[in-house]
Protein backbone atom coordinates (compact mmCIF):
# COMPACT_ATOMS: atom_id res chain seq x y z
CA UNK A 1 0.00 0.00 0.00
CA UNK A 2 1.37 3.36 -0.92
CA UNK A 3 1.50 6.23 1.48
CA UNK A 4 -1.30 8.03 -0.31
CA UNK A 5 -3.76 5.16 -0.22
CA UNK A 6 -2.92 4.49 3.41
CA UNK A 7 -3.61 8.10 4.33
CA UNK A 8 -6.84 7.94 2.39
CA UNK A 9 -7.87 4.76 4.13
CA UNK A 10 -7.14 6.46 7.43
CA UNK A 11 -9.11 9.53 6.44
CA UNK A 12 -11.96 7.29 5.41
CA UNK A 13 -11.88 5.37 8.67
CA UNK A 14 -11.80 8.59 10.66
CA UNK A 15 -14.72 9.91 8.70
CA UNK A 16 -16.59 6.74 9.52
CA UNK A 17 -15.72 6.98 13.20
CA UNK A 18 -16.94 10.56 13.26
CA UNK A 19 -20.21 9.56 11.58
CA UNK A 20 -20.79 6.79 14.06
CA UNK A 21 -20.09 9.26 16.83
CA UNK A 22 -22.69 11.60 15.38
CA UNK A 23 -25.22 8.78 15.19
CA UNK A 24 -24.81 8.10 18.88
CA UNK A 25 -24.81 11.81 19.64
CA UNK A 26 -28.06 12.13 17.67
CA UNK A 27 -29.72 9.38 19.65
CA UNK A 28 -28.39 10.86 22.89
CA UNK A 29 -29.83 14.25 21.93
CA UNK A 30 -33.24 12.74 21.17
CA UNK A 31 -33.33 10.85 24.47
CA UNK A 32 -31.91 13.83 26.39
CA UNK A 33 -34.53 16.17 24.95
CA UNK A 34 -37.20 13.58 25.69
CA UNK A 35 -36.22 13.43 29.35
CA UNK A 36 -35.95 17.21 29.51
CA UNK A 37 -39.40 17.56 27.95
CA UNK A 38 -40.82 15.10 30.41
CA UNK A 39 -39.34 16.98 33.36
CA UNK A 40 -40.23 20.46 32.10
CA UNK A 41 -43.74 19.76 30.84
CA UNK A 42 -45.10 16.82 32.83
CA UNK A 43 -48.63 18.16 32.29
CA UNK A 44 -48.23 18.67 28.60
CA UNK A 45 -47.07 15.28 27.44
CA UNK A 46 -49.84 15.23 24.83
CA UNK A 47 -48.20 18.15 23.06
CA UNK A 48 -44.81 16.47 23.23
CA UNK A 49 -46.24 13.25 21.82
CA UNK A 50 -47.89 15.14 19.01
CA UNK A 51 -44.56 16.81 18.37
CA UNK A 52 -42.96 13.39 18.13
CA UNK A 53 -45.60 12.20 15.68
CA UNK A 54 -45.15 15.32 13.55
CA UNK A 55 -41.37 14.87 13.74
CA UNK A 56 -41.88 11.49 12.08
CA UNK A 57 -43.92 13.20 9.35
CA UNK A 58 -41.23 15.82 8.79
CA UNK A 59 -38.47 13.18 8.73
CA UNK A 60 -40.54 11.31 6.19
CA UNK A 61 -40.93 14.44 4.08
CA UNK A 62 -37.19 15.07 4.33
CA UNK A 63 -36.55 11.68 2.74
CA UNK A 64 -38.34 12.58 -0.49
CA UNK A 65 -37.87 16.36 -0.53
CA UNK A 66 -34.55 16.87 1.18
CA UNK A 67 -32.72 13.79 -0.01
CA UNK A 68 -34.41 13.22 -3.38
CA UNK A 69 -35.54 16.70 -4.45
CA UNK A 70 -39.23 15.82 -4.91
CA UNK A 71 -41.48 18.87 -4.55
CA UNK A 72 -44.61 18.00 -2.58
CA UNK A 73 -47.31 19.87 -0.71
CA UNK A 74 -49.32 16.73 -0.08
CA UNK A 75 -47.20 14.71 2.26
CA UNK A 76 -49.82 14.45 4.99
CA UNK A 77 -51.53 11.94 2.71
CA UNK A 78 -48.99 9.39 3.92
CA UNK A 79 -49.34 10.43 7.57
CA UNK A 80 -53.14 10.43 7.50
CA UNK A 81 -53.31 7.12 5.66
CA UNK A 82 -51.21 5.56 8.39
CA UNK A 83 -53.42 7.11 11.06
CA UNK A 84 -56.63 5.89 9.40
CA UNK A 85 -55.19 2.44 8.67
CA UNK A 86 -54.37 1.84 12.32
CA UNK A 87 -57.56 3.53 13.53
CA UNK A 88 -59.78 1.48 11.22
CA UNK A 89 -57.90 -1.66 12.20
CA UNK A 90 -58.67 -0.90 15.85
CA UNK A 91 -62.27 0.28 15.51
CA UNK A 92 -63.57 -2.00 12.76
CA UNK A 93 -61.40 -5.08 13.03
CA UNK A 94 -60.63 -5.19 16.73
CA UNK A 95 -56.89 -4.99 16.21
CA UNK A 96 -56.19 -3.05 19.38
CA UNK A 97 -52.72 -4.25 20.26
CA UNK A 98 -50.64 -1.07 19.90
CA UNK A 99 -47.76 -2.78 18.14
CA UNK A 100 -50.11 -4.48 15.68
CA UNK A 101 -51.80 -1.13 15.13
CA UNK A 102 -48.38 0.29 14.45
CA UNK A 103 -47.76 -2.42 11.88
CA UNK A 104 -51.10 -1.59 10.20
CA UNK A 105 -50.26 2.11 10.19
CA UNK A 106 -46.81 1.53 8.74
CA UNK A 107 -48.30 -0.66 6.03
CA UNK A 108 -51.06 1.87 5.32
CA UNK A 109 -48.50 4.65 5.06
CA UNK A 110 -46.27 2.57 2.78
CA UNK A 111 -49.18 1.80 0.44
CA UNK A 112 -50.13 5.48 0.38
CA UNK A 113 -46.49 6.25 -0.35
CA UNK A 114 -46.58 3.86 -3.28
CA UNK A 115 -49.77 5.42 -4.66
CA UNK A 116 -48.56 9.00 -4.20
CA UNK A 117 -45.15 8.09 -5.62
CA UNK A 118 -46.69 6.61 -8.75
CA UNK A 119 -48.68 9.79 -9.36
CA UNK A 120 -46.26 12.48 -8.18
CA UNK A 121 -43.15 11.05 -9.81
CA UNK A 122 -44.73 11.30 -13.24
CA UNK A 123 -44.04 15.03 -13.22
CA UNK A 124 -41.26 17.40 -12.22
CA UNK A 125 -41.08 20.85 -10.68
CA UNK A 126 -44.23 22.91 -10.65
CA UNK A 127 -46.54 20.28 -12.21
CA UNK A 128 -45.26 17.89 -9.57
CA UNK A 129 -46.23 20.32 -6.84
CA UNK A 130 -49.68 20.74 -8.35
CA UNK A 131 -50.17 16.98 -8.56
CA UNK A 132 -49.26 16.63 -4.90
CA UNK A 133 -51.81 19.27 -3.93
CA UNK A 134 -54.46 17.54 -6.01
CA UNK A 135 -53.60 14.24 -4.32
CA UNK A 136 -53.95 15.50 -0.77
CA UNK A 137 -57.35 16.96 -1.62
CA UNK A 138 -58.41 13.67 -3.17
CA UNK A 139 -57.28 11.73 -0.12
CA UNK A 140 -59.07 14.20 2.12
CA UNK A 141 -62.27 14.04 0.11
CA UNK A 142 -62.14 10.26 -0.06
CA UNK A 143 -61.81 9.98 3.72
CA UNK A 144 -64.63 12.47 4.12
CA UNK A 145 -66.98 10.51 1.83
CA UNK A 146 -66.11 7.07 3.24
CA UNK A 147 -67.64 8.10 6.55
CA UNK A 148 -68.87 4.59 7.35
CA UNK A 149 -65.23 3.66 7.77
CA UNK A 150 -63.62 6.93 8.75
CA UNK A 151 -66.33 8.74 10.66
CA UNK A 152 -66.19 11.50 8.04
CA UNK A 153 -65.90 15.01 9.38
CA UNK A 154 -66.68 13.85 12.93
CA UNK A 155 -63.45 11.88 12.93
CA UNK A 156 -62.85 8.25 13.70
CA UNK A 157 -63.43 7.93 17.42
CA UNK A 158 -63.38 5.03 19.82
CA UNK A 159 -59.81 3.90 19.32
CA UNK A 160 -58.95 2.08 22.52
CA UNK A 161 -55.52 0.51 22.34
CA UNK A 162 -54.63 -2.37 24.67
CA UNK A 163 -51.84 -1.89 27.18
CA UNK A 164 -48.43 -1.75 25.51
CA UNK A 165 -46.83 -5.22 25.64
CA UNK A 166 -49.88 -6.27 27.64
CA UNK A 167 -48.61 -4.34 30.64
CA UNK A 168 -48.31 -0.57 30.17
CA UNK A 169 -51.77 1.03 30.08
CA UNK A 170 -52.25 4.12 27.95
CA UNK A 171 -52.80 6.38 30.94
CA UNK A 172 -54.66 9.67 31.20
CA UNK A 173 -51.42 11.67 31.46
CA UNK A 174 -50.15 10.18 28.24
CA UNK A 175 -46.95 8.81 29.73
CA UNK A 176 -47.08 5.48 27.94
CA UNK A 177 -47.86 7.12 24.61
CA UNK A 178 -44.99 9.53 25.15
CA UNK A 179 -42.49 6.79 25.91
CA UNK A 180 -43.75 4.76 22.96
CA UNK A 181 -43.35 7.81 20.73
CA UNK A 182 -39.82 8.54 21.86
CA UNK A 183 -38.74 4.94 21.37
CA UNK A 184 -40.36 4.94 17.96
CA UNK A 185 -38.62 8.16 17.00
CA UNK A 186 -35.25 6.91 18.20
CA UNK A 187 -35.59 3.64 16.29
CA UNK A 188 -36.74 5.38 13.11
CA UNK A 189 -33.97 7.93 13.41
CA UNK A 190 -31.33 5.21 13.76
CA UNK A 191 -32.72 3.30 10.79
CA UNK A 192 -32.88 6.39 8.63
CA UNK A 193 -29.30 7.33 9.49
CA UNK A 194 -28.35 3.89 8.24
CA UNK A 195 -30.35 4.30 5.04
CA UNK A 196 -29.21 7.80 4.10
CA UNK A 197 -25.57 6.79 4.41
CA UNK A 198 -25.98 3.45 2.62
CA UNK A 199 -25.27 2.94 -1.08
CA UNK A 200 -28.99 3.52 -1.64
CA UNK A 201 -28.80 6.87 0.17
CA UNK A 202 -25.85 7.84 -2.01
CA UNK A 203 -27.82 6.83 -5.10
CA UNK A 204 -30.73 9.05 -4.03
CA UNK A 205 -28.45 12.04 -3.51
CA UNK A 206 -27.22 11.43 -7.04
CA UNK A 207 -30.77 11.25 -8.37
CA UNK A 208 -31.55 14.57 -6.72
CA UNK A 209 -28.65 16.34 -8.36
CA UNK A 210 -28.51 14.79 -11.83
CA UNK A 211 -30.86 11.97 -12.89
CA UNK A 212 -29.27 11.84 -16.34
CA UNK A 213 -25.90 11.11 -14.77
CA UNK A 214 -27.47 8.37 -12.68
CA UNK A 215 -29.02 6.84 -15.77
CA UNK A 216 -25.64 6.92 -17.49
CA UNK A 217 -24.44 4.79 -14.59
CA UNK A 218 -27.15 2.26 -15.37
CA UNK A 219 -29.41 2.99 -12.40
CA UNK A 220 -33.05 3.97 -12.72
CA UNK A 221 -33.82 7.25 -10.92
CA UNK A 222 -37.53 6.40 -10.94
CA UNK A 223 -37.02 3.10 -9.14
CA UNK A 224 -34.85 4.72 -6.49
CA UNK A 225 -37.45 7.45 -5.93
CA UNK A 226 -40.28 4.92 -5.72
CA UNK A 227 -38.41 2.94 -3.07
CA UNK A 228 -37.76 6.10 -1.11
CA UNK A 229 -41.42 7.05 -1.37
CA UNK A 230 -42.48 3.74 0.12
CA UNK A 231 -39.97 4.08 2.97
CA UNK A 232 -41.15 7.62 3.50
CA UNK A 233 -44.73 6.35 3.63
CA UNK A 234 -43.83 3.78 6.27
CA UNK A 235 -42.21 6.47 8.43
CA UNK A 236 -45.11 8.90 8.04
CA UNK A 237 -47.54 6.04 8.71
CA UNK A 238 -45.74 5.31 11.98
CA UNK A 239 -46.19 8.97 12.91
CA UNK A 240 -49.87 8.88 12.03
CA UNK A 241 -50.36 5.78 14.14
CA UNK A 242 -48.59 7.33 17.09
CA UNK A 243 -50.98 10.25 16.87
CA UNK A 244 -53.98 7.93 16.60
CA UNK A 245 -52.88 5.91 19.62
CA UNK A 246 -52.12 8.92 21.77
CA UNK A 247 -55.23 10.98 20.95
CA UNK A 248 -57.49 7.94 20.37
CA UNK A 249 -59.18 9.67 17.44
CA UNK A 250 -58.26 10.28 13.83
CA UNK A 251 -59.55 13.47 12.29
CA UNK A 252 -59.69 14.68 8.72
CA UNK A 253 -57.06 17.26 9.64
CA UNK A 254 -54.49 14.46 9.56
CA UNK A 255 -55.10 14.23 5.80
CA UNK A 256 -55.10 17.96 5.20
CA UNK A 257 -53.32 20.35 2.91
CA UNK A 258 -52.63 22.51 5.96
CA UNK A 259 -50.70 19.77 7.71
CA UNK A 260 -48.80 19.05 4.48
CA UNK A 261 -47.83 22.67 4.08
CA UNK A 262 -46.90 23.02 7.74
CA UNK A 263 -44.65 20.00 7.58
CA UNK A 264 -42.85 21.55 4.61
CA UNK A 265 -42.48 24.79 6.54
CA UNK A 266 -41.00 22.88 9.48
CA UNK A 267 -38.56 21.10 7.19
CA UNK A 268 -37.41 24.29 5.51
CA UNK A 269 -37.15 25.97 8.89
CA UNK A 270 -34.85 23.27 10.26
CA UNK A 271 -32.96 22.56 7.05
CA UNK A 272 -33.66 20.11 4.23
CA UNK A 273 -31.48 17.12 3.49
CA UNK A 274 -30.55 16.49 7.09
CA UNK A 275 -32.33 14.35 9.65
CA UNK A 276 -31.22 16.70 12.42
CA UNK A 277 -32.64 19.57 10.42
CA UNK A 278 -36.04 17.88 10.24
CA UNK A 279 -36.07 17.36 14.01
CA UNK A 280 -34.91 20.90 14.74
CA UNK A 281 -37.55 22.39 12.48
CA UNK A 282 -40.34 20.40 14.08
CA UNK A 283 -39.35 21.28 17.63
CA UNK A 284 -38.83 24.97 16.93
CA UNK A 285 -42.00 25.36 14.88
CA UNK A 286 -44.25 23.54 17.31
CA UNK A 287 -42.94 25.27 20.39
CA UNK A 288 -43.15 28.57 18.60
CA UNK A 289 -46.71 27.77 17.54
CA UNK A 290 -47.64 26.70 21.07
CA UNK A 291 -46.16 29.74 22.78
CA UNK A 292 -47.12 32.37 20.24
CA UNK A 293 -50.63 31.07 19.67
CA UNK A 294 -51.23 31.15 23.42
CA UNK A 295 -49.84 34.69 23.70
CA UNK A 296 -51.55 36.05 20.63
CA UNK A 297 -54.14 33.71 19.18
CA UNK A 298 -55.03 36.10 16.34
CA UNK A 299 -51.66 36.93 14.90
CA UNK A 300 -49.64 33.82 15.59
CA UNK A 301 -49.66 32.79 11.95
CA UNK A 302 -48.25 36.20 11.03
CA UNK A 303 -45.42 35.59 13.48
CA UNK A 304 -44.76 32.16 12.04
CA UNK A 305 -44.70 33.75 8.59
CA UNK A 306 -42.22 36.36 9.76
CA UNK A 307 -40.01 33.69 11.32
CA UNK A 308 -40.06 31.68 8.11
CA UNK A 309 -39.19 34.66 5.95
CA UNK A 310 -36.34 35.53 8.28
CA UNK A 311 -34.96 32.00 8.07
CA UNK A 312 -35.31 31.74 4.30
CA UNK A 313 -33.64 35.11 3.78
CA UNK A 314 -30.89 34.96 6.37
CA UNK A 315 -30.33 31.23 6.89
CA UNK A 316 -31.38 29.57 3.64
CA UNK A 317 -29.99 26.23 4.75
CA UNK A 318 -32.39 26.26 7.69
CA UNK A 319 -31.62 26.64 11.37
CA UNK A 320 -29.74 23.39 11.76
CA UNK A 321 -28.12 23.55 8.32
CA UNK A 322 -26.74 27.03 8.99
CA UNK A 323 -25.38 26.18 12.43
CA UNK A 324 -23.85 22.94 11.14
CA UNK A 325 -22.31 24.82 8.21
CA UNK A 326 -20.74 27.39 10.54
CA UNK A 327 -19.41 24.63 12.81
CA UNK A 328 -17.91 22.78 9.85
CA UNK A 329 -16.23 25.95 8.61
CA UNK A 330 -14.78 26.58 12.05
CA UNK A 331 -13.48 23.01 12.17
CA UNK A 332 -12.05 23.39 8.67
CA UNK A 333 -10.32 26.64 9.64
CA UNK A 334 -8.87 25.05 12.76
CA UNK A 335 -7.25 22.29 10.72
Amino acid sequence: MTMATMNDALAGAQGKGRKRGRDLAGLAVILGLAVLGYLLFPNNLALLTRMTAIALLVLSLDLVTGYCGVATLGHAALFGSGAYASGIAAVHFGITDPLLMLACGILGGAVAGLVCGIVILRAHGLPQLVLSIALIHLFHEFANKASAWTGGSDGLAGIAPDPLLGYFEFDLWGRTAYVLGIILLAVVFALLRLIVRSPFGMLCRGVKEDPIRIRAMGASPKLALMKMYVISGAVAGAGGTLNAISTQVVGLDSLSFTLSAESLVMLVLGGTGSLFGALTGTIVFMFFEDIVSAANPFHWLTMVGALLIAVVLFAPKGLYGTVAGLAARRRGAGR
Partner: protein
Amino acid sequence: MSTIFEVRSLKRAFGGLAVTNDVSLAMAPGDRVALIGPNGAGKTTFVNLVTGNLTPDSGDVLIGGESVTRIDATGRVRRGLVRSFQVTRLFQEMTSAEHVALAVLQRDGRAGRMFGHFLAMPEVMAEVAGLLGKLGLSELMHRRVSEIAYGQQRLLEIAVALALKPRVLLLDEPAAGVPQSDTGRIEQALADLPADLAVLMIEHDMDLVFRFAKRVIVLAAGTIIFDGSPLDVTRDARVREAYLGSYANAGHAA
Protein backbone atom coordinates in the same frame (compact mmCIF):
# COMPACT_ATOMS: atom_id res chain seq x y z
CA MET B 1 -14.57 -10.33 -37.19
CA SER B 2 -17.12 -10.34 -34.40
CA THR B 3 -19.18 -7.22 -33.86
CA ILE B 4 -19.87 -5.90 -30.39
CA PHE B 5 -21.49 -2.63 -31.35
CA GLU B 6 -23.40 -1.74 -34.46
CA VAL B 7 -25.44 1.20 -35.68
CA ARG B 8 -27.66 0.89 -38.74
CA SER B 9 -28.99 3.88 -40.70
CA LEU B 10 -29.50 6.07 -37.67
CA LYS B 11 -31.47 9.21 -38.38
CA ARG B 12 -32.55 12.14 -36.29
CA ALA B 13 -33.69 15.61 -37.25
CA PHE B 14 -34.31 18.66 -35.09
CA GLY B 15 -36.98 20.84 -36.63
CA GLY B 16 -36.20 19.80 -40.20
CA LEU B 17 -32.43 19.89 -39.71
CA ALA B 18 -31.01 16.38 -40.17
CA VAL B 19 -28.43 16.30 -37.38
CA THR B 20 -27.81 12.59 -37.75
CA ASN B 21 -28.38 11.56 -41.33
CA ASP B 22 -28.21 7.85 -42.10
CA VAL B 23 -25.22 6.95 -39.93
CA SER B 24 -24.03 3.33 -39.92
CA LEU B 25 -20.98 1.82 -38.32
CA ALA B 26 -19.78 -1.33 -36.65
CA MET B 27 -17.12 -1.96 -34.03
CA ALA B 28 -15.38 -5.10 -32.86
CA PRO B 29 -13.94 -5.78 -29.39
CA GLY B 30 -10.60 -4.08 -29.07
CA ASP B 31 -11.34 -1.39 -31.65
CA ARG B 32 -9.89 2.06 -31.06
CA VAL B 33 -11.92 4.47 -33.13
CA ALA B 34 -11.77 8.24 -33.20
CA LEU B 35 -14.87 10.14 -34.28
CA ILE B 36 -13.97 13.59 -35.50
CA GLY B 37 -15.73 16.38 -37.29
CA PRO B 38 -16.24 20.11 -37.22
CA ASN B 39 -18.22 21.79 -34.43
CA GLY B 40 -21.89 21.06 -34.76
CA ALA B 41 -21.30 18.04 -37.00
CA GLY B 42 -23.57 15.96 -34.82
CA LYS B 43 -21.04 13.94 -32.84
CA THR B 44 -22.59 14.42 -29.42
CA THR B 45 -26.04 13.89 -30.88
CA PHE B 46 -24.83 10.58 -32.26
CA VAL B 47 -23.68 9.53 -28.78
CA ASN B 48 -26.98 10.68 -27.27
CA LEU B 49 -28.88 8.61 -29.82
CA VAL B 50 -26.96 5.38 -29.36
CA THR B 51 -26.95 5.60 -25.56
CA GLY B 52 -30.67 6.23 -25.38
CA ASN B 53 -30.50 9.82 -24.12
CA LEU B 54 -32.28 10.80 -27.35
CA THR B 55 -34.72 8.77 -29.44
CA PRO B 56 -33.82 8.33 -33.12
CA ASP B 57 -36.38 8.97 -35.85
CA SER B 58 -35.32 5.70 -37.43
CA GLY B 59 -32.48 3.21 -37.43
CA ASP B 60 -31.15 0.52 -35.15
CA VAL B 61 -28.59 0.20 -32.39
CA LEU B 62 -27.19 -3.22 -31.52
CA ILE B 63 -24.99 -4.29 -28.63
CA GLY B 64 -23.45 -7.74 -28.96
CA GLY B 65 -25.90 -8.55 -31.75
CA GLU B 66 -28.95 -7.63 -29.65
CA SER B 67 -31.10 -4.73 -30.79
CA VAL B 68 -31.36 -2.17 -27.99
CA THR B 69 -33.23 0.47 -29.95
CA ARG B 70 -36.30 -0.02 -27.75
CA ILE B 71 -34.34 -0.42 -24.52
CA ASP B 72 -33.85 2.63 -22.33
CA ALA B 73 -30.57 4.24 -21.37
CA THR B 74 -30.11 2.26 -18.17
CA GLY B 75 -30.66 -1.06 -19.95
CA ARG B 76 -28.00 -0.15 -22.49
CA VAL B 77 -25.53 0.68 -19.74
CA ARG B 78 -26.23 -2.65 -18.10
CA ARG B 79 -25.48 -4.32 -21.44
CA GLY B 80 -22.08 -2.69 -21.43
CA LEU B 81 -22.57 0.51 -23.44
CA VAL B 82 -21.08 3.33 -21.37
CA ARG B 83 -20.44 6.96 -22.22
CA SER B 84 -18.72 9.97 -20.77
CA PHE B 85 -20.06 13.49 -21.19
CA GLN B 86 -18.52 16.34 -23.16
CA VAL B 87 -19.45 18.71 -20.36
CA THR B 88 -18.72 17.04 -17.05
CA ARG B 89 -21.75 15.72 -15.23
CA LEU B 90 -20.75 15.01 -11.69
CA PHE B 91 -22.35 15.45 -8.28
CA GLN B 92 -21.04 18.65 -6.73
CA GLU B 93 -21.45 17.56 -3.11
CA MET B 94 -20.05 14.05 -3.51
CA THR B 95 -16.42 13.05 -3.16
CA SER B 96 -14.36 11.39 -5.90
CA ALA B 97 -14.46 8.15 -3.95
CA GLU B 98 -18.24 8.30 -3.69
CA HIS B 99 -18.58 8.72 -7.44
CA VAL B 100 -16.46 5.73 -8.30
CA ALA B 101 -17.92 3.64 -5.49
CA LEU B 102 -21.45 4.38 -6.66
CA ALA B 103 -20.54 3.25 -10.17
CA VAL B 104 -18.85 0.08 -8.88
CA LEU B 105 -21.81 -0.75 -6.61
CA GLN B 106 -24.32 -0.07 -9.37
CA ARG B 107 -22.38 -2.27 -11.78
CA ASP B 108 -22.51 -5.10 -9.24
CA GLY B 109 -26.22 -4.55 -8.61
CA ARG B 110 -25.63 -3.35 -5.07
CA ALA B 111 -26.46 0.34 -5.37
CA GLY B 112 -29.88 -0.36 -3.86
CA ARG B 113 -28.42 -1.68 -0.61
CA MET B 114 -29.88 0.14 2.36
CA PHE B 115 -27.26 -0.59 4.98
CA GLY B 116 -23.51 -0.45 5.27
CA HIS B 117 -21.13 2.14 3.89
CA PHE B 118 -18.82 1.73 0.95
CA LEU B 119 -15.82 2.87 2.98
CA ALA B 120 -16.29 -0.33 4.96
CA MET B 121 -16.38 -2.54 1.86
CA PRO B 122 -12.76 -3.49 1.19
CA GLU B 123 -13.33 -4.88 -2.31
CA VAL B 124 -15.14 -1.71 -3.39
CA MET B 125 -12.49 0.51 -1.86
CA ALA B 126 -9.71 -1.48 -3.55
CA GLU B 127 -11.28 -0.78 -6.94
CA VAL B 128 -11.94 2.85 -6.07
CA ALA B 129 -8.36 3.40 -4.95
CA GLY B 130 -7.03 1.56 -8.01
CA LEU B 131 -9.04 3.57 -10.52
CA LEU B 132 -8.44 6.93 -8.87
CA GLY B 133 -4.75 6.09 -8.59
CA LYS B 134 -4.55 5.29 -12.28
CA LEU B 135 -5.99 8.70 -13.12
CA GLY B 136 -3.82 10.50 -10.63
CA LEU B 137 -6.68 11.41 -8.33
CA SER B 138 -5.57 9.57 -5.18
CA GLU B 139 -4.92 12.78 -3.32
CA LEU B 140 -8.43 13.98 -4.07
CA MET B 141 -10.18 10.78 -3.06
CA HIS B 142 -12.13 12.34 -0.23
CA ARG B 143 -12.56 15.76 -1.78
CA ARG B 144 -15.91 16.91 -3.07
CA VAL B 145 -16.24 17.67 -6.74
CA SER B 146 -17.01 21.31 -5.90
CA GLU B 147 -13.52 21.51 -4.40
CA ILE B 148 -11.53 20.08 -7.30
CA ALA B 149 -10.32 21.68 -10.53
CA TYR B 150 -12.19 21.17 -13.78
CA GLY B 151 -9.32 19.30 -15.39
CA GLN B 152 -9.40 16.78 -12.60
CA GLN B 153 -13.18 16.54 -12.84
CA ARG B 154 -12.66 15.45 -16.45
CA LEU B 155 -10.42 12.66 -15.19
CA LEU B 156 -13.00 11.66 -12.61
CA GLU B 157 -15.63 11.53 -15.34
CA ILE B 158 -13.48 8.92 -17.09
CA ALA B 159 -12.90 7.03 -13.84
CA VAL B 160 -16.67 6.74 -13.36
CA ALA B 161 -17.09 5.37 -16.89
CA LEU B 162 -14.30 2.85 -16.39
CA ALA B 163 -15.72 1.75 -13.04
CA LEU B 164 -18.76 0.48 -14.92
CA LYS B 165 -16.49 -2.02 -16.74
CA PRO B 166 -17.98 -1.34 -20.17
CA ARG B 167 -17.77 -3.51 -23.26
CA VAL B 168 -18.21 -0.46 -25.47
CA LEU B 169 -16.95 2.90 -24.26
CA LEU B 170 -17.96 6.18 -25.89
CA LEU B 171 -15.81 9.10 -24.77
CA ASP B 172 -17.10 12.54 -25.73
CA GLU B 173 -14.05 14.81 -25.89
CA PRO B 174 -12.35 13.37 -22.79
CA ALA B 175 -9.46 15.83 -23.06
CA ALA B 176 -11.53 18.97 -23.53
CA GLY B 177 -10.82 21.30 -20.64
CA VAL B 178 -7.91 19.22 -19.35
CA PRO B 179 -4.69 21.20 -18.96
CA GLN B 180 -1.84 20.05 -21.22
CA SER B 181 0.04 18.78 -18.18
CA ASP B 182 -2.72 16.28 -17.44
CA THR B 183 -3.58 14.95 -20.90
CA GLY B 184 -0.79 12.42 -20.40
CA ARG B 185 -2.89 10.89 -17.64
CA ILE B 186 -5.82 10.47 -19.98
CA GLU B 187 -3.65 8.99 -22.66
CA GLN B 188 -2.13 6.58 -20.19
CA ALA B 189 -5.57 5.59 -18.95
CA LEU B 190 -6.67 5.03 -22.54
CA ALA B 191 -3.58 2.94 -23.22
CA ASP B 192 -4.28 0.84 -20.12
CA LEU B 193 -7.86 0.02 -21.12
CA PRO B 194 -8.69 -3.68 -21.35
CA ALA B 195 -7.60 -5.01 -24.74
CA ASP B 196 -11.03 -6.40 -25.63
CA LEU B 197 -12.89 -3.16 -24.89
CA ALA B 198 -14.24 -1.33 -27.93
CA VAL B 199 -13.59 2.42 -27.60
CA LEU B 200 -14.98 5.26 -29.66
CA MET B 201 -13.49 8.60 -28.78
CA ILE B 202 -14.68 11.99 -29.98
CA GLU B 203 -11.75 14.37 -29.95
CA HIS B 204 -10.60 17.61 -31.51
CA ASP B 205 -6.96 17.26 -30.48
CA MET B 206 -5.52 15.59 -33.59
CA ASP B 207 -2.26 14.58 -31.90
CA LEU B 208 -4.24 12.60 -29.38
CA VAL B 209 -6.38 11.14 -32.16
CA PHE B 210 -3.39 9.96 -34.14
CA ARG B 211 -1.70 8.38 -31.14
CA PHE B 212 -4.85 6.65 -29.99
CA ALA B 213 -6.88 5.57 -33.00
CA LYS B 214 -6.39 2.75 -35.44
CA ARG B 215 -9.41 3.98 -37.34
CA VAL B 216 -10.86 7.42 -37.86
CA ILE B 217 -14.45 8.28 -38.72
CA VAL B 218 -15.25 11.78 -39.91
CA LEU B 219 -18.71 13.16 -39.42
CA ALA B 220 -19.81 16.31 -41.21
CA ALA B 221 -23.32 17.73 -41.22
CA GLY B 222 -24.68 14.51 -39.78
CA THR B 223 -23.16 12.20 -42.39
CA ILE B 224 -20.11 9.97 -42.28
CA ILE B 225 -17.80 11.27 -45.00
CA PHE B 226 -14.76 9.19 -44.14
CA ASP B 227 -14.13 5.90 -42.37
CA GLY B 228 -10.62 4.57 -42.65
CA SER B 229 -7.07 4.64 -41.39
CA PRO B 230 -5.52 7.67 -39.70
CA LEU B 231 -2.93 7.79 -42.47
CA ASP B 232 -5.50 8.37 -45.16
CA VAL B 233 -7.70 10.84 -43.35
CA THR B 234 -5.45 13.87 -43.84
CA ARG B 235 -5.18 13.17 -47.56
CA ASP B 236 -8.90 12.82 -48.11
CA ALA B 237 -10.27 15.64 -50.22
CA ARG B 238 -13.77 15.58 -48.76
CA VAL B 239 -12.48 15.71 -45.23
CA ARG B 240 -10.33 18.72 -46.04
CA GLU B 241 -13.24 20.40 -47.68
CA ALA B 242 -15.51 19.73 -44.70
CA TYR B 243 -13.03 21.24 -42.28
CA LEU B 244 -12.16 24.14 -44.56
CA GLY B 245 -15.83 24.68 -45.28
CA SER B 246 -16.64 24.84 -41.62
CA TYR B 247 -13.86 27.31 -40.97
CA ALA B 248 -14.87 29.36 -43.96
CA ASN B 249 -18.44 29.40 -42.66
CA ALA B 250 -17.28 30.27 -39.20
CA GLY B 251 -15.27 33.13 -40.65
CA HIS B 252 -18.21 34.23 -42.68
CA ALA B 253 -20.55 34.18 -39.70
CA ALA B 254 -18.08 36.19 -37.63
